[in-house]
């Protein structure tokens, strides 16, 4: 069968096989359509704000993390200083009785402090907080769980290099050595 014959068949199909819809079809369809509830188009969601939103969320997270890191050094030094001062005054007032009950750092914390140069400041936090507690209750038996100690040690290990990196941004850093 040649291509011409194919074209002839196609042309005949186009001309002869077409049918007309019955007259009542349109009326019947529209009767049913009018009986149906009117549709409300579901408009597609605007998606071009979505990448911007995730970008803004990521930027907020980064900014919060940076702010937290900058506050870490100054916050720990301030609190630890206060705690140590209070601990020192308490120990002096109690005649060394409380001093003996103050918890020494555990072996894990001690090992970490040997490696991390800024360990004493956070160490003072723990000791200061415990001594504050001892000031309030003389019968308090302090106990620092091993999990807490390891968590603090990890935090110190991570915080030390970050603190060194952000040292130029630290407002309290180098206040004593500044000369006009």
């Amino acid at each position, binding site marked *: 069968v040649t291509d011409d014959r194919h074209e002839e068949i196609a042309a*005949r199909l186009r001309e*002869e*096989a077409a049918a007309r819809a019955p007259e009542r*079809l349109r009326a019947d369809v529209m009767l049913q*359509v*009018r009986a149906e509830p*009117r549709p*409300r*188009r579901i408009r597609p969601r605007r998606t071009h704000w979505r990448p911007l939103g995730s970008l803004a969320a990521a930027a907020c997270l980064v900014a919060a993390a940076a702010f937290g890191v900058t506050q870490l050094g100054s916050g720990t030094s301030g609190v630890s200083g206060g705690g140590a001062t209070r601990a020192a005054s308490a120990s002096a007032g109690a005649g060394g009785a409380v001093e003996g009950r103050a918890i020494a750092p555990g072996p894990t914390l001690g090992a970490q402090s040997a490696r991390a140069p800024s360990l004493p400041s956070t160490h003072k936090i723990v000791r200061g907080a415990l001594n504050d507690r001892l000031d309030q209750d003389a019968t308090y038996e302090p106990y620092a769980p091993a999990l807490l100690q390891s968590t603090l040690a990890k935090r110190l290990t991570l915080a030390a290099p970050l603190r060194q990196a952000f040292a130029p941004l630290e407002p309290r850093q180098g206040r004593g050595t500044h000369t006009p």
Partner: protein
Amino acid sequence: VQEALTVALPRFEAPWAYHGRVQIASDEVLAKRAADGDELAFEELVVRYQDRLYTLALRITLSDADAYDCVQEGLVAAWRGLASFRFDARFSTWIHRIVVRKAYDVLERRARTAEPVDEVPAVSVDSPADTRIDLLSALAQLEPEFRVVAVACDVVGLSMDEAAAVLDLPAGTVKSRLHRARARLAEALQAEAAP
């Protein structure tokens, strides 16, 4: 000068004069208006497509009553589904696809229940009756998978790609089936013409 001044200017109709009247618009514009609940826009689409859809359903199902039901149910289903139609395909492809599925359902139901088709294929166009009957009977004798492709491409006038989308077939399959359908029709007509 006086005559020139008295020539009536073209009448300007205010925009609200067109309210409710469907102007010449694309299928997609009408479909969006119908999706918002505009019944007149949907009626315009029915007028545009009813003959093509009826032809498609009639040549697939080979029954007037079944074709009527397919088109009617398909158009009502389209009205219900327009709200969720995302317009990522052409309206034409979508509406043809709905009716083709309805027609396939009829064929499957017949195959399950061995329902006989006792109606003569409709003849509704002006052409010599004897040759037309020959062609239509030859078309009706084709297997459904070949007949559907021949009807979609040659009778309804869909392009290869659009027929592939409507029938959910690869374009290559549509092309080969169309070629074989035309060849079989030519052979059948040649055999009938021979004494």
